[in-house]
Each structure stands twice: as C-alpha cells, then as structure tokens.
C-alpha cells in the first residue's frame, strides 16, 4: 500500500474558507504596505522609491505565491489522485485535515475511491462466485465465436462429450459444433433460430461423443455482445439421454398397448355385439349386455390412457384447422341426447354461429364431449345443462353450466390433475377413471387454449373451454 499523503495542520489551515485565507494573506500584505507608506518622508530620496518598488514587487510576489499555495496545491493533489484512480490504482487513500472547500473536495475524492473499491470487490466476488457455479455446474457450458471456435467451456461439457480433460476439448480446432451434431438439418435450425431471435431455449439435439456414442442434450443459448461490440454465443447443455431413452420405452409401450391390447378388446366387443343381435333368453341377454358394456368401458379406458400418454409425450401431432365450435357443441349434444333424455334433463346450446376455432378438431371434439358428458353425468335427474359459445378477440369460448352436484373448493384446486376424482363424484359415478378432465386440460393446453372451472358445491358448476380463434384479424362483434 502506498504512503498516505497528509496535509500539515497549521493555524492558517484552521480558517475554514479559501476566500478567508486569500483575503487574510492579501489584506495582511496590504496593511504592511500602508504601514510602510505612513513613514514616507516629506521629500523622499531616490533610494526610498527604490525601496517602495521593492516592497510592492514583494507584495505582488508573496500574494501570488500564497494564493497559489492555498488554491493550486490541493487542486493538484486532487488531480493526481483522480489520475491514479483513472490509471487503475485504487489503493492510495486521500488523507487531509483541511477544513475548507478543498478539504471537502479531497474527502469527496476519498469517498469516491472507497465506493469504487467496494464496487470492484463486490464485482470480483460475484464474478468468482458465478465462475465457480459455471465451473462446478453439472450442466455443460460453452462460449463460442462466429467462426465456430470454442472460447471457453467447463469440465462438465468436456465429460459430456467424452473428452478426458477440458484442455483437450478446448484444443479442438474451429468447426467442432458441426462435427458434434448428428443431424445437420437440426443444427441449421438451431443456427437459424439464434440468428433470428438472439436466443434459443430447450433445443433438443443429438450429439456424437468423441467415442462415437450418440447422446441427447437440451441446449439453451444466447447471443452475447462484448464491450467492443463483438458477438459470441454462450450456451448451457443438459444431458437428457436417459429421459430420451425412457420416452422411447414409453412410446414402444404405447404402441404395444395400441395394437396388442386394442385388437383382442375389439374382438370381445364385436363378438358380444353379434351375440346381442342373436336370439337369446332374457337372463343370457342381460349377461351379454353387461359384458358388452364392460368391454366398451375397458376400451374407453385404454383409449384414454393412450391419448394421455401420447399427449404427455408430445407425440400426438395436432393438425389445427378452422372448425365451428358452436356446431361441434350441437353435434355432441345430439350424440348425448339419449343419455340426457333418460335422466329427464334439459340441454340447451346458445350462442352466435361465428365461434370458429383453430385447433385439431378431433382432439377438440373429445374435450367438448368429455365436458358435456360430465355435466350430464353429474347433474341430478330433471336438472339443466346450458351450453353457450362465444367469439372473443383472440379466442372462442365454450361454457357449460349445470345444476349438478358441484365441486368443493378443495377439489376445484386439483380438478384437472391426472387420476384425481372428487369425493362427491365418486359417489355419483363409481366407474370414472380421473382421466377425462386431465385429458381436456392436455388438449386445451396443446391447442393454445385453456380450461377453467367455477363451482358451488350442491348448486352446480360452470366449465369454460377456450381455444384460439381461427380468424384473428377480424374484430370480435
């Protein structure tokens, strides 16, 4: 640490203001000159004038030098300190005992220096902390420039890509990204997104490790601009190979269920259907009817599980196309007429005919069917189910209001969870699986819409399904 600079404390320094000091100095000298003039002889000789000239010159010189010392010295000191700080030396403290404005100035410089030192220490600490986080992170980290050179990386990335050390990875020549990617089309898509948006999140891609093994990673990256205006890419990679393999297993299982389970189930159902159409005694007929209903229920359950698995895995390719949500509701109600009529319920569909949604019609139909059949199922005999459709600015809305058993507040919070069944629902319908509303939620979310519920237990419920509107350009009526 450099030697502190300390100003001497003399009585003169005790005068608070600089003007006071300068005035005292100049006034004192002027008084000396006046006193000197009081003793001017009647007819001064030339030597007197010489003396007088010398006195005035001394007065001016002393005044100037004194003023310089009082004013210029502290300014120079402040300047030297500020220059030192500017040159990056923050270690020299500015000490002063001066009490005037220059003392304040020097103390101000010292305060600024201390603030700067604190800020630099905080920055260094933060940088060290984040560097440690990046270095110790289980996520792979990299920085690369536009030429495709790796500027920085961490140990995790080196391990993930099969390198023995970080140095070995960093020694790779430019263009490493191209060699790593299994699918160049996918890599181009990544580059395109980075150039277009400046960032990419959760981008799944297959990479080939040094040992040739293929791994799956999800990558989040952004374009960063340094203080010189140069851009580089910074990204984090997560190894998701295990998850991908699990997804593959799940997908294989789903395919197995699809074909291997549904085929014999269809056989049972169809044979029972044929048996229903043949002559039988009433007792056998009732057994066949029950077996048929049971087979149908099992097929429904398998289908629901299948849809859930496919929607969850994101494997169900939705094909959004415009369709009339109002007409769909009318058709679904017509399909359920027998069910509603058997319970003496009144079902109405109101709303304008311009509720044209943009979603996958097959999936949307399933959501609408689940919601309306639920309303009928959980509304007591003689109740009412009122359906309205409406077009809003960005969405079309389907509301289904019933006078049913309602849903408790506690149950409402968990209503759209997988396998959840409200207590009062289990009493009314023992056969439910807890998949219906979960499916509705998956379908709504997959389509860019939402499903919500408001309900009063014992009074009824209103379910609202929203889906994106087909023609966003047109204003809502």
């Amino acid at each position: 640490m450099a030697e502190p600079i300390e100003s001497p404390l003399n009585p003169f320094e005790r005068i608070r203001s600089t003007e006071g000091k300068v005035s005292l100095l100049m006034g004192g000298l002027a008084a000396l000159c006046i006193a000197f003039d009081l003793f001017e002889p009647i007819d001064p000789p030339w030597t007197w004038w010489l003396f007088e000239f010398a006195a005035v010159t001394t007065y001016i010189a002393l005044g100037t030098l004194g003023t310089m010392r009082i004013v210029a010295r502290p300014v120079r000191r402040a300047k030297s300190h500020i220059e030192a700080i500017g040159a990056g030396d923050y270690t020299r403290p500015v000490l002063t005992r001066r009490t005037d404005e220059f003392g304040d100035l020097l103390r101000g410089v010292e305060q600024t220096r201390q603030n700067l030192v604190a800020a630099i220490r905080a920055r260094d600490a933060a940088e060290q902390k984040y560097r440690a986080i990046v270095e110790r992170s289980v996520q792979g980290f990299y920085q690369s420039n536009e030429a495709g050179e790796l500027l920085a990386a961490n140990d995790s990335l080196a391990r993930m890509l099969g390198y023995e050390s970080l140095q070995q990875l960093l020694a790779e020549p430019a263009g490493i990204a191209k060699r790593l990617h299994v699918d160049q089309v996918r890599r181009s898509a990544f580059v395109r997104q980075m150039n277009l948006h400046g960032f990419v999140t959760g981008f799944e891609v297959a990479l080939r490790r040094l040992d040739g093994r293929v791994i799956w990673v999800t990558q989040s990256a952004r374009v960063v601009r340094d203080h010189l205006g140069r851009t580089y890419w910074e990204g984090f990679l997560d190894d998701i190979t295990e998850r991908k393999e699990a997804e593959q297993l799940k997908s294989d299982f789903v395919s197995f269920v699809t074909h291997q389970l549904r085929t014999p189930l269809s056989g049972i159902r169809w044979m029972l259907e044929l048996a229903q159409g043949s002559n039988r005694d009433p007792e056998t007929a009732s057994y066949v009817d029950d077996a048929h209903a049971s087979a149908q229920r099992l097929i429904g359950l398998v289908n629901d599980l299948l849809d859930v698995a496919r929607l969850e895995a994101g494997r169900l390719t939705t094909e959004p196309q415009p369709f009339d949500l109002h007409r769909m509701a009318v058709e679904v109600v017509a399909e359920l007429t027998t069910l509603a009529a058997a319970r003496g319920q009144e079902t109405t569909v109101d709303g304008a005919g311009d509720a044209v949604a943009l979603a996958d019609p097959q999936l949307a139909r399933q959501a609408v069917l689940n919601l309306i059949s639920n309303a009928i199922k959980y509304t007591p005999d003689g109740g009412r189910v009122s359906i309205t459709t409406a077009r809003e600015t960005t969405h079309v809305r389907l509301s289904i209001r019933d006078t049913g058993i309602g849903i408790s507040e506690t149950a409402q919070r968990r209503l759209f969870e997988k396998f959840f069944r409200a207590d009062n629902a289990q009493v009314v319908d023992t056969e439910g699986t807890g998949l219906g509303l979960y499916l509705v939620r998956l379908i709504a979310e997959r389509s860019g819409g939402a499903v919500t519920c408001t309900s009063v237990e014992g009074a009824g419920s209103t379910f609202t399904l929203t889906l994106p509107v087909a023609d966003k350009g047109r204003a809502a009526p």
Partner: protein
Amino acid sequence: MTAAPTILLAEDDRFLRRAVEVALTKRGYHVIAAVDGQEALDKAREHKPALILLDLLMPRLTGMEVLDALRSDPAMNDVKVLILSNSSKELAMHDASRLGVSGYWIKANLSLQELGDRVATFLPPGPPPTTAP
C-alpha cells in the same frame, strides 16, 4: 335380384375377421376374407372387389405394402380402400392418405353397427341374405 357387392377383408386376427365377416354378410355384402397381406393382394387381383377393408399390421405383407402394390397395378389402382387398424400412429395415417385411401378407421373406436353404416356410405349393400351365415 342384384348380386351382393364384393368386399375383400384383410385381417389377421381371426376373431375380428369373423365378426366383420358375419356383420357385413348380414348387411348384404359378399365378403372374401384374407388372413395376411400376401393373400389379400392375391385375392384382390383374383376377385376384383368393389371395396377393400385393409388392416395395417399383418404377416407376410403389411397393409401399406399391399396398398403400394395395388396403387402401382393398373388393373387395381382405382379400387376403394378403407384402412381398418388399431394403430393410430400419425405416420401411418399420413402414409395412408398419401396413397389415396378413402378412410382410416380405428377398430377400437367403432361398433360393428357403425362400421356397417360407414361401409354403406362407400358401397351400398345388396339385398340381405335370406338365411344367416
């Protein structure tokens, strides 16, 4: 009396094959059954059916291979084909629509009654048989 229109049913599961055969025969169709893809192709060429109900996952030749062969056969390329499968894989649906099928139905989602109704919209049945098969 008009002859019953001919439907070729390609289905490897014997229970499903029997159920569809019985249901469609009752409705007034002449049903020829095939137990695998190769037999389906042979019987299609031999009988020139008005409509083919085609399963996808079958031994020897898959439904898609049968469809491919039919579409490249000048004598058979305009025959109406309905896929009757339990696979709801989007890829299969896409391929099937590319090869010009008239419908893609999931067996598990259909009752025999619905299947018969839908078939009738593509091919009106003949008079129902006087005796049960």
